[in-house]
């Protein structure tokens, strides 16, 4: 349960809000690199943290992320022409470079100085891995670039997709921290999904429906451990890292690629879900890539040419009651990503947390909310840099491991939950 004012504090990310300012301390995913595939390609509308922006890639390959609307009369630059080193408004020809600087106002004299006085808000946009990352904060406090492992392994070892989710970012993130729903909502996938099935760990999942949970602090956020009984008096642990503000990884299964998510607020009622799969030491196989692109694992099948899932609100997520009866999909909705999205969207655009009935198994969510709230207030009141800004905090992994009962998952798994380049994931 959260008081109304705390729910508003955590869910509102527009300019000037405490949580919005918190998000503006980090590099956040703004687009997939594939959305700006070549120099002078069409610009893309981008809404981030309730700010309407336009992204483009100029003739020199430089990326720009600037105010969507022309300074002249407020027309959208999405209709503009991306040519000769800048984006030109189609209305009266005003032209802007990737920094938002106006470089030409055709109605002014050729040697005029007026355009030098016109500059749109702009933010740095940088390609790291398959993602274009934006930083919407104070330039003087711009942190080092992201060091998450999935964007630094060779390109043949990683794949990232994205989808639009019609809910506030926080209820989506909370799904990534909440390990207990996997046993129910995603139970069908453990047996059938090509990116999950066959792992020994699945047997532990299916064999123990009442896991114990341990939540521990990490430099950048939390580690949430779920433990189940294994053979010979041992425990099977699944360890989920959360790095602030909205990065989580799913514990791996067998030699399947490792996956995770970034939840990025579009506005207060929508978010982008960036979903990645990577393998630390080998290329993804053609079959794995095909499965990911088809929406298996934690990815979604999107409407061609868009990032909206084929299964969405407008078609009741293609609910299949027969598949639900057969036990093929626990909820009747196909695919892990849309199983999550369907339930999280059903809560409403911003779930009313004043009415929750939380239980101790929700401790990970409770602790995450507390860390977000404290970080946002410490930033607002004292200027304290929040956890997760330091790129060193990004070098974490999820892990699945069988340990003797007396061993603590974090003390025994230090290496397993730390990125050691060139070493495989710890998985069962």
């Amino acid at each position, binding site marked *: 349960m959260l008081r109304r004012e705390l729910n508003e504090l955590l869910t509102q990310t527009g300019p000037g809000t405490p949580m919005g300012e918190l998000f503006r301390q980090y590099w956040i995913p703004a687009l997939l690199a594939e959305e700006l595939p070549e120099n002078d390609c069409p610009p893309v509308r981008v809404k981030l943290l309730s700010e309407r922006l336009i992204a483009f890639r100029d003739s020199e390959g430089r990326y720009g992320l600037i105010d969507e609307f022309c300074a002249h009369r407020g027309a959208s630059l999405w209709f503009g022409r991306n040519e000769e080193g800048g984006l030109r408004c189609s209305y009266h020809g005003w032209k802007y470079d990737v920094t938002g600087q106006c470089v030409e106002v055709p109605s002014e004299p050729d040697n005029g100085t007026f355009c030098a006085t016109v500059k749109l808000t702009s933010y740095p946009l940088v390609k790291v891995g398959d993602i274009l990352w934006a930083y919407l904060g104070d330039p003087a406090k711009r942190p080092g670039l992201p060091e998450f492992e999935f964007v630094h392994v060779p390109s043949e070892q990683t794949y990232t997709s994205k989808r639009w989710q019609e809910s506030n970012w926080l209820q989506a993130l909370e799904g990534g921290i909440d390990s207990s729903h996997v046993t129910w909502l995603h139970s069908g996938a453990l047996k059938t999904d090509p990116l999950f099935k066959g792992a020994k760990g699945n047997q532990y999942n299916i064999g123990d429906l009442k896991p114990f949970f341990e939540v521990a602090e990490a430099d950048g956020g939390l580690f949430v451990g779920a433990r189940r009984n294994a053979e010979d008096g041992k425990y099977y642990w699944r360890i989920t890292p959360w790095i602030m503000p909205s990065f989580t990884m799913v514990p791996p299964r067998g030699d399947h690629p490792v996956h995770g998510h970034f939840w990025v607020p579009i506005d207060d009622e929508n978010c982008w879900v960036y979903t990645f799969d990577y393998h630390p030491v080998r290329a993804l196989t053609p079959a794995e890539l095909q499965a990911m692109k088809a929406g298996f694992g934690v990815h979604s099948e999107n409407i061609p040419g868009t990032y909206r899932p084929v299964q969405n609100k407008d078609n009741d*997520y293609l609910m299949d009651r027969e598949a639900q009866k057969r036990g093929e999909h626990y909820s009747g909705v196909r695919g892990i990503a849309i199983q999550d999205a369907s339930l999280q*969207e059903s809560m409403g655009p911003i779930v009313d947390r004043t009415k929750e009935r939380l239980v101790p198994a929700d*401790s990970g969510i409770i602790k995450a909310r507390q860390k977000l709230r404290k970080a946002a207030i410490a930033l607002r009141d004292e200027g304290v840099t929040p956890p997760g800004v330091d790129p060193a905090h990004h070098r974490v992994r999820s892990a699945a491991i069988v340990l003797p009962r007396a061993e603590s998952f974090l003390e025994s798994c230090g290496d397993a939950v730390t990125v050691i380049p060139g070493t495989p994931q710890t998985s069962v």
Partner: protein
Amino acid sequence: MNRPILLNSCARAATSAEARFRINVPIAPSRGTRVVALDAGAERVVRRVAEQPWATARFFVCKSPTLLAQSNGEVADVGLLSTHGFESRLSLELAGADVAMMVASTDDGAYAARAIGDACTLRGTMTAGVVLAGGRDAGETVSALRPHARVLLVTYDEQDVSELLTALRA
């Protein structure tokens, strides 16, 4: 017909406007939560938390000596002292409780944790543990509580005790 024709009968009802029509009744009474400090460090925290207004939560410290004779031949009972000063027993306090929260800063309360865990298992009472790590190596404390707490929070922030209780409507 297998297609909904009204907004409120399809997934599109998940809008702010439709949220106005959600049934709005008072939230049911909170859980019966018993909070037990297992050692002196935890006692200081629990006593501070107990001063806040709570709905039904009750707060205790383990008395010394902690364990009473096994009252039913199977599970040891634990002598408790409430933060209001009255003496009680675990077996009495667990009646009507649905969560037992153990708070520890050392492994001094390992035996009490076991007794509480066993008693809760017997009664089907949920168990939670908060380990106040306080910047120290909390490994032994965590090991002491792990078998007996279905949910364990290892934290540097003693406010987590009240955060958890608030979230649980205790």
